[in-house]
């Protein structure tokens, strides 16, 4: 099925936006204002729906006219385009949206035609499926790893780099013990928070490497984004 690549599902939804000439703020503007105010990064509502790899929301005002000799035409409704890439099946994901981020979903989709609200999850799922447009061709470069597996792998990558640096020149016995402790500690570390900048990669080793080429008199390691 073109909507899926391996374990990853590519969902595309076009929700028609309400028109109300009497409204003080048009519905498309209201959606844009709401989206502009939504938290980003680890505070994003999509970080709560933790199976989301990447997602975007776009207000499509009209179709594009590319000039003569093509015909000029216009949409009768504007559309809210929701594109998301997530692990697992569609119904579970939509139900999670309804249950875990109901306020945000309501705030955005209440401006769309036919939106039933999230209080009845099955009605919300049915509505979203009605607005789904099937994917014609879907490409996912890594399609066999979940979000959590990827975050854990990035965490492990960072930790391994640091471990290697710290354990240079150790005796074989020390190295083996140190490795056993390291692996145990890594297993006990909670998975990184989705959407948090820098925490998925190896920022500590990166800063240490930079540190090695610069002198910091107070011994303080700069943060990765400095």
């Amino acid at each position, binding site marked *: 099925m073109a909507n899926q690549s391996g374990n990853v599902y590519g969902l595309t939804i076009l929700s028609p936006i309400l028109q109300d000439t009497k409204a003080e703020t048009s519905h498309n503007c209201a959606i844009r204002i709401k989206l502009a105010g939504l938290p980003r990064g680890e505070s994003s509502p999509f970080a709560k729906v933790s199976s989301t790899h990447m997602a975007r929301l776009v207000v499509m005002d009209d179709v594009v006219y*590319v000039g003569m000799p093509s015909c000029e*035409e216009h949409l009768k409704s504007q559309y809210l385009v929701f594109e998301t890439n997530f692990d697992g099946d569609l119904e579970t994901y939509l139900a999670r949206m309804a249950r875990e981020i109901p306020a945000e979903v309501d705030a955005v989709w209440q401006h769309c*035609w*036919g939106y039933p609200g999230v209080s009845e999850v099955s009605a919300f799922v049915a509505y979203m499926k009605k607005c789904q447009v099937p994917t*014609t061709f879907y490409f996912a470069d890594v399609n066999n790893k979940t979000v959590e597996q990827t975050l854990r792998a990035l965490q492990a990558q960072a930790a391994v780099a640091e471990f290697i640096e710290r354990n240079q020149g150790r005796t074989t016995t020390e190295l083996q013990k140190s490795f056993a402790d390291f692996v145990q500690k890594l297993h006990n570390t909670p998975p990184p928070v989705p959407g948090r900048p820098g925490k998925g990669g*190896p920022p500590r080793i990166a800063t240490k490497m930079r540190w090695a080429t610069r002198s910091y008199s107070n011994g303080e390691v700069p943060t990765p984004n400095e």
Partner: protein
Amino acid sequence: MKWWKTWIVRLFFLVLGAIKPLQRDLVQLSFIHFARWVIVKRNAFPHPAQEQPVEELKYDYLLFFSNFNGTWNQYIDAFSAVLSRGLNFIWRWSEKFPGSVPVTPFKQYIARCQFDTDYYYTAYPYATTNDVKAAHRVQAALEALEKQSVGMSPEEFASAYLRFLVTVQCDLGETGRAPVGT
């Protein structure tokens, strides 16, 4: 796109999906996490409410979504340089597509047809596609070493550890903001 041309594009994607080696250039570019093409038929725009006006369109529309690393210019330049034949085959059926080479009219066309994103989320904001793949390779090598190391003598472990270092040494790069060069 004129409605009858969308069937050609569908056929192309069908072949592209079935014959994996045809995706080689796309895979080797290795800066796209997820990409998709979606054909919206002129009479298939979603219509979930009776009161909603019905669209009356002459054209079908091809939507393209891409989640990539780097800047817009880097992305289009690489696309144009590496995938021009494939891109041309996909978009040549669209109205007034200028071709992906030369790149200047190609960029002008994209800029004209593009919708700006109002909200974007990624679970691993500073990891590129290559970072993700490298991290999974490190993770796999680490798990293998952990399994092997059970019951090893310190000398055997040191030898296995050395092999592990050789395996992962190219996959320990830094993540973070990419340098921007335009």
